[in-house]
């Protein structure tokens, strides 16, 4: 019992520092300058939203912070130590569904836990059930992945990312494919979980309103090459309602800024 409560206690969120990160992809059709000298400081426990049009390097930056991709120059510091590879401290919710179809819901959440030593099978199960309850899927633990709706899939992905008790959560457009109603529910859930579990969250989105609803800060990217243009502090009380008037004021302002920085051919941003 002690190990389970030990495992479930809140861990201190990490402080992240992205320092002058550049990244170029070389392909047969030429070079893509995905990130150009990007710097960003994220406080421990901060919720930061990255907003920008398609192809501006948001996913690339997330992969670099996760340690899945290397940089050409610059580095990422987690609590002052350089990130050299992926690890349980920083979990990712990927843009496309990365749930394992050969495992059921519980199996997916258990995958990361099984790689943690010092837990018995029973304890792992208890931990997994805790997170499935947290995302409201306790009645679907033995469902197959293909039987879930899009929203439920993202909830499983969230539970799977939370289960190893990371200090940072990196979320790449997790709600992009969902309908507005499901999304609104998840905005509530993610704010509640963030407050409860105290994680540093970096959240990528196309949707300015979503960013304002969730973020302590909204960071604006522009493409070709990917650069940070502006940062906005969102000083609204929580929990926030995506339909509130105050929120709309912020998103109008940010959308305007975004359009200013955009080159005319890339306007795929929803307000």
């Amino acid at each position, binding site marked *: 019992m002690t190990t389970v409560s030990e495992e479930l206690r809140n861990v201190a969120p990490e402080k992240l520092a992205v320092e002058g990160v550049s990244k170029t992809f070389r392909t047969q059709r030429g070079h893509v300058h995905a990130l150009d000298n990007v710097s960003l400081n994220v406080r421990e426990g901060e919720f930061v939203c990255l907003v920008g049009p398609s192809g501006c390097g948001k996913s690339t930056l997330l992969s670099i912070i996760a340690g899945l991709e290397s940089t050409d120059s610059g580095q990422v510091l987690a609590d002052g130590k350089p990130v050299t590879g992926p690890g349980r401290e920083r979990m990712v919710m990927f843009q*496309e569904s*990365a749930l*394992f179809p*050969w495992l059921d819901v519980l199996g997916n959440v258990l995958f990361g836990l099984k790689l943690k030593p010092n837990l018995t099978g029973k304890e792992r199960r208890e931990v997994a059930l805790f997170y499935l309850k947290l995302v409201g899927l306790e009645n679907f633990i033995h469902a197959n992945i293909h039987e879930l709706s899009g929203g439920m899939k993202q909830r499983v992905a969230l539970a799977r990312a939370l289960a190893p008790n990371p200090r940072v959560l990196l979320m790449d457009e997790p709600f992009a494919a969902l309908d507005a109603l499901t999304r609104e529910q998840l905005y509530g859930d993610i704010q509640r979980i963030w407050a409860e579990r105290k994680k540093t969250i970096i959240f990528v989105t196309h949707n300015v309103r979503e960013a304002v609803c969730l973020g302590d800060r909204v960071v604006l990217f522009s493409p070709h090459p990917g650069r940070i243009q502006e940062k906005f502090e969102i000083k609204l009380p929580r929990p926030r309602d995506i339909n509130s008037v105050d929120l709309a004021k912020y998103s109008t302002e940010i959308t305007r800024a975004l359009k200013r920085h955009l080159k005319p051919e890339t306007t795929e941003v929803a307000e």
Partner: protein
Amino acid sequence: MKRWLLVIIFFAVLIGAWEYLVRRGVWSPVLVPSPLDVGRYFVSSIQDRTLLEASYVTMKRLVLGYVVSLIIGLPLGLLNARFKACEDTIGVLALGLQTLPSVCWAPLALLWFGQTETAMFFIVIMGSIWSVTLATDAGVRSVPPIYARAARTMGSGGLHTWLKVIFPASLPFVVSGMKQGWAFAWRSLMAAEIYVTILTGFGLGHLLHYGRELHAMDAVIGIMIVIIVIGLLADKILFSPIERFLHRRWGTARN
């Protein structure tokens, strides 16, 4: 229940039509025995145990040869998918040999190993191993890289990723390759038994061969039926449950 009824009626009608046509004298009784003759052959050959022993010998060869094919073929496929050098060498060889009908191995096997058990194993293994290798290779390549990336963030790496992510993710492909490998093993073994005439350890293929030599059509057809039934049972008992599981989990019609 209804399904079973349909199956029974279908085969009853088939056998009935066969009996009817034989009685009408449509074919020479030397060439086409009646179902009753075949039935009598079954009874006598089960009583004197020739059919049972031959089936046992054949199954033993088949299972052993197939298992060896899997033990070699699966890792070869994984290696091919993992290392470019393997793909360019073993992969090309596998692709070439896969197209070679397995009967073509018989002359070579006879010259190398003589009329022996080894010759038959060799033919079975050569017949089935390449399709297992190629399917595993293709299966692993079809695995979205995102699975391995996700696994890495959760602390998986190296062998763990291969065993717990890449391999299960490629299972739908691998299983269909294993099924194909089984079918090829079965075909190769029959070719081997018909060509490699050994003095001990008669298999179904040998019985078939001698049935022909003795012009015993009831035996020839009876043995063919046994061969078909074994093939059917293997499919239904061995592969159907696995395929059903895969369909359920993946929610697709892939197999």
